[in-house]
């Protein structure tokens, strides 16, 4: 024991140097998004393979539940189809600005304050950065990194994620954020006081960004906090989908995204 302590003490310069160096490299990775994604895409490729194997096993046991979910969704879609007589079966008139493709979540996290998911589709399948990911009932997140076969999704349960959302059938919108506590609740901020809101109102996506189309269901208002000093509501939104057990998701590709972004950049310049 004495010898170990002696050898540590005689090399304390090197030890201090290594600690400081590692700490600064940790700072580099932690504080810069580019480095973070670079580091993650390396570790992604490595861990995705393991997750994929595990997830295929897990899927087998969940088949019953997944079937029920899909039947429910089918039912819902059929109801909408037959209750709306005005649907015109003409391919020219169908709005094709958003293309959907399916994917499976192979790794899911909700215990950190910055949560990410991994899905089993990558750039080989036409997935790109900044595409939206949704489930049958709500929004899951936005794709931040793409490797060949897998993609990393910044979950809505990430304190850095901000999603444009609005109150259904009105034009008052705000940004949907997570405060890092309850994985079933999000906060809708920046909704002006003049908006009329009651508990139980539906919250849908706002369509102000090029990522999600308008009117995707997200959740319902569960608590309204009216701060007297400010001109904005603090709204708590209960999510429709259970983020902790979602398995099948859809990736949305907005084919006009580049066009919209180019236009936005023009304004910024």
């Amino acid at each position: 024991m004495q010898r170990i302590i002696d050898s540590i003490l005689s090399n304390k310069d090197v030890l201090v140097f290594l600690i400081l160096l590692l700490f600064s490299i940790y700072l580099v990775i932690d504080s810069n998004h580019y480095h973070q994604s670079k580091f993650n895409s390396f570790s992604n490729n490595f861990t995705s393979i393991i997750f994929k194997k595990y997830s295929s096993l897990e899927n087998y046991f969940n088949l019953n539940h997944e079937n029920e979910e899909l039947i429910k969704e089918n039912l819902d879609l059929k109801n909408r189809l037959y209750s709306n007589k005005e649907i015109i079966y003409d391919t020219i008139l169908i709005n094709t600005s958003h293309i959907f493709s399916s994917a499976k979540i192979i790794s899911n996290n909700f215990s950190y304050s910055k949560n990410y998911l991994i899905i089993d589709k990558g750039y080989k399948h036409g997935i790109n950065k900044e595409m939206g990911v949704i489930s049958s009932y709500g929004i899951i997140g936005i794709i931040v990194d793409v490797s060949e076969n897998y993609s990393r999704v910044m979950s809505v349960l990430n304190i850095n994620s901000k999603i444009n959302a609005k109150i259904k059938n009105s034009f008052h919108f705000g940004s949907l954020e997570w405060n890092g506590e309850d994985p079933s609740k999000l906060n809708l901020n920046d909704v002006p006081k003049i908006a009329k809101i009651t508990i139980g109102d539906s919250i849908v996506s706002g369509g102000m960004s090029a990522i999600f189309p308008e009117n995707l269901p997200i959740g319902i208002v569960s608590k309204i906090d009216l701060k007297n000093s400010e001109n904005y509501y603090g709204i708590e939104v209960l999510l429709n989908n259970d983020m902790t057990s979602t398995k099948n998701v859809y990736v949305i590709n907005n084919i006009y995204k580049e066009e919209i972004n180019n236009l936005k950049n023009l304004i910024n310049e």
Partner: protein
Amino acid sequence: MSNLYFIIAFRFVLILIVQGLIFNKFDLFGLYDPHISIIFVLIFPIKTNRIFFLIISFFFGLILDYFSNSIGINAAAFVTIAFLKPYIMNFVFGNFYDPHGIKILKDYIQDSTIYQKVLFVLIIILIHHFIMFSLESFTIDQIKVVIKKTFYTSLLSLFFCSSLIYLLAQNER
């Protein structure tokens, strides 16, 4: 002794401000900034405690990072050159340390040639810039760009550092 720490603190603040506010905006050909902040490590008093030197260099680099918005990159580079400085001095200035561990208090500034001084400054600058640029790009694919950037920026830094040290030394005399 307190005088020594006062000088260190004074240089710390002065060099940070000069680098952060003036030389970071130099942008020769829109790309290359001279890093005169390395002077802080180059002229750091050699009699001080080595761990103290390492920690001070770390914080120097970290604060510099806040100026240039590149958290951690300069800190890593500065800690490394602070750690390697005694070895490089030994390599460049020869028998600066006695093999028996007793320090020969030789005035290495007066007893060395101009080539030795330039070589010493150049080696430290090269190491610093290489670490800085490779951490910045953070990938092997861009190694050519990193080396090119390191080379040109080093030349620029070498010019500014040597002339500034020369001017300061003249002033002190």
